């Protein structure tokens, strides 16, 4: 087994809706989709965003495009106009998720 970052298996985009951000995580190859579904769980995402996401994490699968959508509640310090953060709209939350490490038994 080797440890890699999600960025080797997926690409992603994130944005804001009120005080929630969403991250669409897309498999770079359909073969990786199953790994994303297995490894990138609600619990792991919640832990990964400790200090950023203060609420719950929702997870939705889009098998047609080999993607998973995560909604991170209370993750924008009040939302786009009220947040004092540099990234008030969660535009880089996708990058944060792509840093996550996963164990795989192949070389992508």
């Amino acid at each position, binding site marked *: 087994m080797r440890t890699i970052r999600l960025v080797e298996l997926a690409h992603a985009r994130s944005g804001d809706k*009120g005080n929630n951000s969403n991250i669409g995580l*897309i498999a*770079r190859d359909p073969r990786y989709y199953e790994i994303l579904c297995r490894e990138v769980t609600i619990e792991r995402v919640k832990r990964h965003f*400790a200090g950023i996401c203060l609420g719950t994490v929702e997870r939705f699968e889009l098998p*047609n495009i080999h993607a998973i959508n995560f909604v991170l509640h209370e993750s924008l310090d009040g939302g*786009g106009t009220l947040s004092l953060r*540099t990234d008030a709209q969660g535009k880089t939350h*996708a*990058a944060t998720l792509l840093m996550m490490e996963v164990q795989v038994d192949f070389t992508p």
Partner: protein
Amino acid sequence: MNKKKVTIAAGQGFWGDWLEAPVRQIQGGAIDYLMLDYLAEVTMSVLAKQKEANPALGYARDFPPLIERILSDIVQRNVKVISNAGGLNPRACAEAIVASARSRQIPVKVAVITGDDITALTSSRDFLHLETGGSLSQIRDRISAANAYIGADPIVEALQQGAQIVITGRVADPSMVLGPLRFAFGWKENDWDRLASGILAGHIIECGAQSSGGNFSGDWRAVPDLAHVGFPIIEAYEDGDFIVTKHPNTGGLVSQATVKEQMVYEIGDPTAYYTPDVVADFTTAQLSDAGPDRVRITGVKGKPRPGAYKVSISYFHGYRTVSTLVYSWPDAIAKAKAAAEILRIRIQDLGLQFEKIHSEVIGANACHGQLTDSNNELIPEVMLRFVVQGYHERDVKRFTREMAPLVLGGPPFATAYSGGKGDVSEVYGYWPSLIDRAEITPRVECLV
């Protein structure tokens, strides 16, 4: 096979997007419609402030000069333009365009869509917060604008009346693409699958270059010539199938990957993407390659439209100032954090009252929080960013004097203060809610 095809090009993804994009969309090849999106959640607050200062304003002021630039082209090529540039004052926006067209003796029919402004209703009744369930009474005395997100119906009507330019206020962004498709193909207002197709098409191009190679995380180095990025174009067919593409000889990239990234942008449950026109199921869309820079989308399914419109209410939420300072090696991160601590003590000593105080170290923890935070002493430089927000303007103003003294009286090797002296800005909050469809009557009026 000679199916009827309708072509819709995106010209702006937000107010502030590339000014050359709409011109290049008109001149780069044949299109039927040009759609320009100017309104984000935050934009309505900005417009409310401008309208308050001058009742003749409150719309995207970039838009009339843009139309002036492309007017003769769109008339000559019979390109119809649809935009929500009207913001909080679509009539004034349309009048500015009509006046300029008249002075150049180019006759053009401009439709104004109103009925989304519900500010008057907010004084007498409650609009519960969509996420928190809170009562509007918390902010009622501070409301600056309230609008319902209306749908494609009035856009269809405006096009039926022969408008060349359709100017709306707060319309759901993808409805600006669905409107011309319904008009061109005669889709019924309960043809849920076709409507869902049109909404997905709108969703894919409403953020401009984000579906044609911009902000693409798949492989940004492989996207050619972003300096001349081609904004996305929809080629739609009567059965609801459509192709995402861009003009030939433009930069950027349209691939399944770039389209997928935009499909998942700012969505919740992908099986229920709510719009005023239809609830679209993005998990039913099938993507396939249709040539270079061409992606075909088929099979989109929809469910009946909701009984309520979404409402956005913006309200005054105090004052804010942002101050920054750059710290150099050695110990750049630790020094920036020490400087922030000094500022917090001084705020206390001065008795300044703030609702929120926030500090970040750009280069360590600003985007990814504790995941990347460290005290790595090798980092060459970082920027301390310190933000305060509160209702007492005097206290916020007073704070703007606190960062500079750290250059001489704080940890060593601080610089770039002149770029970081904060101005005091007003802050507006965003209050989402719902309103019953029956209470909203969109209106269409044509000016010539």
